[in-house]
């Protein structure tokens, strides 16, 4: 009885909170910003070679004049809008518009070649919409309990949680585990550049006053992802195999629906779950879903030849993952991937500290953003399908014109963040650094995560040690054989991190890990 009434209370709270959220998100201005974000997101999703990281950095200055709620609604729209757009390119051109739509190229493009491009686009939009709705509800439902849990976390627990997040990032990165750890360490090292907050001493600045406030996440992200990406693209000649056949009917027929319903459900579930993982679990969703569908199928040989399940499942998974990735950021203040790391930067610019206090202190921001995600998904469903002709036309803009425009927009964006030409200069330097990293087989995405978490980690480490008077037992202190466990949360998280890394380097697992990424190539 007690449980029932508390459950009832919880649902009433949820309804009340969502009501508040929709009240905020449905204002004319926020609706407009959400629409704009989704539109821009779809555009960059469609265009291969322009990722959400570069775009969000480019557009940060645009949001200066907007209030924080509107700004974050728009930036979030860019991120999940890109997931919708990415599939359009994957299906029509056989190039993933975004990293998460790699799997869609396998069956989606085959469907397009068979004259069923419209159905593939239709089912991916419908699957994405369904996944978006479900994950919005998941975010809303998990937010309150997770935030309460976050308030129980002490500095030591936070530190250990971030270690866990970084270990996930290591496991989920391509290539060797050692390389991924090394890249994260470089990110953490970069995060210590600037004045030490406690002693006021300058670290790693080499007497250069411009960086005494530390490096800016936007500058680093733009260099590593915006410019290095362009340099990489210039060296790979992409053949754009645009489908010339008519796109055909957009609405899937009854048989298509029957075949796709279960994959969409499973994909949504897998994607939501993986998106929650710190360390960019969202990218894994589509792969996991594709593998699962292929295993479950009566006739696995259809996959790769235009099986609709191979589009419906992964497309739902990638959208679900993109949205649940907001949960660690909004409840714990820990960004799970590079895009979320940039959202931290955006929040900081607007004077918001990400973490559990957002929900209690700025409920209109928190719930407004969540409600806007559902509205955004609805808009994407409506704007995407009729506008496909327009997106295809954008695909015909040659890269030789596109990249100089991206360069200019990036320059203007970075300059405007702080009206500083020095920032633009540093972005170029990081662009070169990112190019070198790529050439040496080091992935830049874990670096950015290490950079963002590094600062927080040092702060929490120092706090924890001050509280514990220098005793490392504040991180690990558990003697199950004596029946005592003084710091169960932190101990558990660190043990889990250790297990993950050990499992990742085990020969059998690391082999299947290679296979997953091989599929992507």
């Amino acid at each position: 009885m007690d449980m029932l009434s508390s459950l009832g209370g919880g649902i009433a709270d949820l309804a009340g909170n969502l009501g508040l959220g929709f009240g905020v998100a449905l204002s004319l201005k926020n609706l407009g910003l959400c629409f704009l974000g989704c539109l821009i997101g779809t555009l960059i999703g469609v265009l291969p070679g322009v990722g959400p990281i570069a775009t969000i950095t480019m557009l940060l200055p645009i949001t200066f004049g907007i209030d924080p709620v509107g700004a974050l609604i728009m930036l979030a729209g860019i991120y999940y809008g890109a997931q919708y757009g990415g599939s359009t390119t994957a299906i029509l051109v056989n190039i993933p518009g975004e990293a998460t739509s790699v799997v869609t190229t396998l069956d989606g493009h085959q469907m397009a070649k068979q004259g069923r491009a419209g159905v593939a686009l239709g089912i991916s939009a419908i699957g994405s919409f369904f996944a978006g709705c479900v994950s919005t509800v998941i975010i809303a439902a998990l937010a309150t309990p997770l935030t309460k849990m976050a308030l129980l976390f002490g500095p030591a627990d936070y530190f250990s949680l971030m270690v866990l997040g970084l270990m996930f990032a290591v496991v989920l990165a391509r290539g060797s585990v050692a390389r991924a750890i090394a890249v994260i360490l470089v990110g953490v090292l970069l995060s210590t550049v600037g004045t030490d907050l406690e002693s006021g001493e300058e670290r790693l600045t080499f007497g250069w006053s411009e960086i005494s406030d530390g490096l800016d996440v936007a500058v680093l992200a733009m260099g590593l992802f915006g410019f290095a990406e362009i340099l990489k693209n210039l060296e790979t000649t992409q053949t754009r195999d645009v489908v010339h056949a008519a796109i055909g009917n957009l609405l899937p027929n009854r048989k298509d629906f029957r075949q796709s319903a279960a994959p969409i459900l499973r994909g949504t579930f897998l994607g939501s779950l993986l998106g929650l993982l710190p360390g960019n679990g969202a990218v894994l969703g589509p792969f996991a879903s594709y593998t699962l569908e292929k295993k479950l199928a009566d006739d696995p040989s259809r996959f790769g030849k235009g099986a609709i399940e191979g589009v419906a499942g992964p497309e739902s998974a990638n959208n679900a993952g993109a949205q649940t990735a907001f949960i660690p950021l909004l409840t714990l203040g820990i960004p799970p991937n590079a895009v979320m790391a940039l959202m931290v930067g955006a929040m900081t610019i607007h004077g918001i500290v990400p973490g559990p206090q957002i929900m209690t202190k700025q409920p209109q921001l928190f719930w407004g953003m969540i409600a806007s995600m559902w509205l955004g998904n609805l808009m994407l469903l409506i704007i995407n399908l009729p506008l496909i002709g327009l997106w295809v036309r954008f695909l015909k803009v040659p890269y030789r014109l596109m990249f100089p425009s991206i360069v200019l927009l990036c320059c203007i964006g970075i300059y405007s963040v702080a009206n500083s030409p020095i920032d633009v200069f540093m972005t170029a330097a990081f662009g070169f650094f990112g190019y070198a990293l790529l050439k040496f087989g080091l992935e830049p995405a874990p670096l950015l995560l290490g950079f963002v978490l590094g600062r927080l980690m040092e702060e929490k480490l120092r706090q924890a040690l001050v509280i514990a008077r220098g005793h490392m037992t504040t991180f690990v202190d558990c003697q199950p054989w004596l029946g005592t466990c003084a710091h169960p949360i932190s101990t558990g998280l660190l043990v889990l991190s250790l297990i993950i890394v050990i499992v990742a380097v085990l020969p059998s697992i690391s082999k299947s890990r290679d296979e997953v990424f091989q599929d992507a190539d």
Partner: protein
Amino acid sequence: MLDVPGDGAQPSEKGIIKSQLDLAAGLLLIVIALVGLYGTLGLRFGQLTSVGPALMPRSVAVLTGVFGMGLVVTSFLSAGPRLERWHWRGPFFVLGSVLLFAMTIRGSTLMFGSLKVVVPQLGLAIAGPLTVIFASLADRDTKPVELLIFTVFLTIVCVGMFKFMLRLPIPILPLGWGSF
């Protein structure tokens, strides 16, 4: 034909260096670690009871160096991919155009030893197209007429959007040419 990154899977087994890629990555990490150590010289490391400013960066730098050395060692032991070719055209023109923008948007003073070079402010209306044209030289397929028309269009859009719509405080014209 350009080299495609990631496809250089042919192992470079000739000689003592079995994996050029591991060696290069390892050396890069070691250099980063040394810079990290050098940059924290003279700062207090502290102990667990009172953590000093150097504790985090120095420990991380040491760890980075350890991983770097590990990669260098593996490069002699197990075969791996060859180092990809570096192309200088892309980085030169793309990053060069970014530097050009940084120098000219608001003007700047460069010091080469004792030589002082003053770059005048050009503003977005001139620095913008300059950046676009210089960057586009990175691609051999650039078509001059198409590029020129496109640049003019892009500049007008940028000035309109950033200056008049969003009212960002970005200079538009060279200093003294107008009130922007």
